[in-house]
């Protein structure tokens, strides 16, 4: 075999590229094409209109649920990340134990729906939280706002996605050697200072990735908002799901999905921008050849 280096490289990359094209690029493109079609009485008609986008953008409902989704997404992803970092730090640098990691992952063995119902039980008017508050004499009548609110949605989503976020944090921290943390401490940084000056900049891409993946999954989750969100906790994910499941307006759903996709990109850019401005995210220069 005398294939030139470059063609050999493409050949080796081909399976991965093919996989991505078949299972990711093509479906996304189909959805993108759909978003310009029209729907009439549960039938999808090929077309080229912008009305799906324009109608969504002009609909107050779309804005309400999208802002809701963004808020729930940002708050949930931020809290999840903040909770995941200490756990990840402990797992990577202090305990170095796989057992705890597996214990965290075991929580995933319980059904997603079961956990949502568990929170309904905990937060409901006759739930554990209200019972405690009443028993403790803090409130006289059960508090109704715990359930069917953004609060309920956020706390449930944090609970569900925290193990996932911990995994992402662990993988991004494990690339950072403990001795640079020691070096930072040795040079006068406090434990928190070492985190912000050394760990955060080096783990930045991984941590931003963890944040964004959590955000995308949380903002796109449509089961939890449906079960716990009430009228104030509905999100775009639910709206999009309804277009596909109930009204049968796939083009509108596709357009709204792409708008959410844009929102995610804007938020990613904003997070990176904030990171750069605060110095937590540093652009690493590509390596030049080492000198003698």
């Amino acid at each position, binding site marked *: 075999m005398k294939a030139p280096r470059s063609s050999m490289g493409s050949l080796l990359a081909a399976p991965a590229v093919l996989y991505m094209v078949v299972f990711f690029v093509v479906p996304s493109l189909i959805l993108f094409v759909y978003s310009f079609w029209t729907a009439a009485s549960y039938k999808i008609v090929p077309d080229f209109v912008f009305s799906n986008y324009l109608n969504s953008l002009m609909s107050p409902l779309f804005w309400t649920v999208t802002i809701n989704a963004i808020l729930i997404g940002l708050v949930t992803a931020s809290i999840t990340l903040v909770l995941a970092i200490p756990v990840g730090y402990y797992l990577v640098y202090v305990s170095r134990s796989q057992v705890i990691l597996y214990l965290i992952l075991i929580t995933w063995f319980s059904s997603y729906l079961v956990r949502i119902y568990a929170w309904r039980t905990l937060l409901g008017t006759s739930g554990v939280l209200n019972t405690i508050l009443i028993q403790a004499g803090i409130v006289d009548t059960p508090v109704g706002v715990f359930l069917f609110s953004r609060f309920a949605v956020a706390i449930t989503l944090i609970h569900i996605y925290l193990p996932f976020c911990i995994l992402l944090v662990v993988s991004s921290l494990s690339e950072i050697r403990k001795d640079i943390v020691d070096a930072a401490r*040795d*040079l006068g940084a406090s434990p928190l200072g070492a985190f912000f000056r050394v760990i955060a900049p080096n783990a930045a891409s991984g941590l931003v990735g963890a944040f964004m993946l959590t955000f995308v999954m949380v903002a796109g989750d449509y089961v939890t908002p449906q079960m716990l969100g009430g009228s104030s906790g509905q999100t775009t994910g639910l709206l999009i799901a309804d277009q596909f499941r109930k009204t049968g307006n796939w083009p509108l759903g596709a357009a709204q999905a792409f708008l959410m996709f844009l929102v995610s990109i804007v938020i990613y850019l904003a997070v990176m921008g904030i990171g750069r401005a605060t110095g937590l995210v540093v652009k*690493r220069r590509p*390596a030049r050849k*080492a000198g003698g």
Partner: protein
Amino acid sequence: MTIRAPVIEITAAQKMFGSFQALSDINLSIEQGEIVTLLGPSGCGKTTLMRLLAGFEAVTAGTIRIDGKDCAGQPPERRPVNMVFQRYALFPHLDVFENVAFGLKVKGTPKAEIRERVQRMLHIVQLDSFANRYINELSGGQSQRVALARALVNGPKVLLLDEPLAALDLKIRQHMLVEMKRIHAETGATFVYVTHDQDEAMILSDRVVLMEKGRIVQVDRPETMYAAPKSLFAAKFLGETNLFEAAMASDDASGMTAVTGSGLRFHSSIVPAGELRGKAIVSIRPESFRFNRDNDTTQSATGQVEDVIFIGSRSFYTICLADGVRARVQVQRSTRTSLPKPGEKAEIFWDSENVVILPGS
């Protein structure tokens, strides 16, 4: 010499990891400006001792005083020591200048002062023109210099070096040893240097702290430790040596005598570390044997040359003395004296100041 308080004073320090005794009964004081190496095989506790000094670990018992102050409970960032890590531990997201400036910046030093001190330090380690290079653009030797500069720029009372040359290849290692001595002279800092490499320890140190199994076995100047090891471990760990099993024969004003089972007599004028009785082990360095008689030489043995290894400036002879007792003899190349050839009979000579008698097991 003026008498000063030691910059490091370790008293009865112990360290346990769970039920494992990593360090026991460590007593050591280090003077301002010294280069002290902690030398020992891996697992002897030398790195643990260094991490105790840096503040990454806490003593289980005993005290460590740095610059006169008991540093129990003091975290690494509050200790007047800085460390050079084994694999440099440079910050990959910062360039050379920012790496060196890190400590000063954390302490809120004014910008102009940071610039000046960092540049001066980069000059000392001869990296003036590398200030804006990133870490992944540096060679091993350059990374090592950055690590040194990053620690020294803070003006530590003590610089801790954890096997700093272990990751470098031999040629750069030898060069860096010379550099390290020069940098020590220029900065006047106290160096505590951890290594398992006896050559590094001998070349660099004012004093060597030899450790074995969590204990300090001997603290001495390198020459003294080489010439008069106080234990079999010290004799074997530093340099090469001949060991002969023997029994104590006599002990008089001029020294002691031990005799091997085959009747070889070794007389030593070195004052032993402890009481010697019964079984003994005699240690003589290969270069302490000679083939030519000196005027005042009193000790000798005859044997047969089994093997000769010629390595340029030196040759190594294996001489079979009596019933299978072998001596390794190192001689300098010489065109004046004729040296024995393999198979020939040879007489070897040695002096009592080169005979070390150690307690046998």
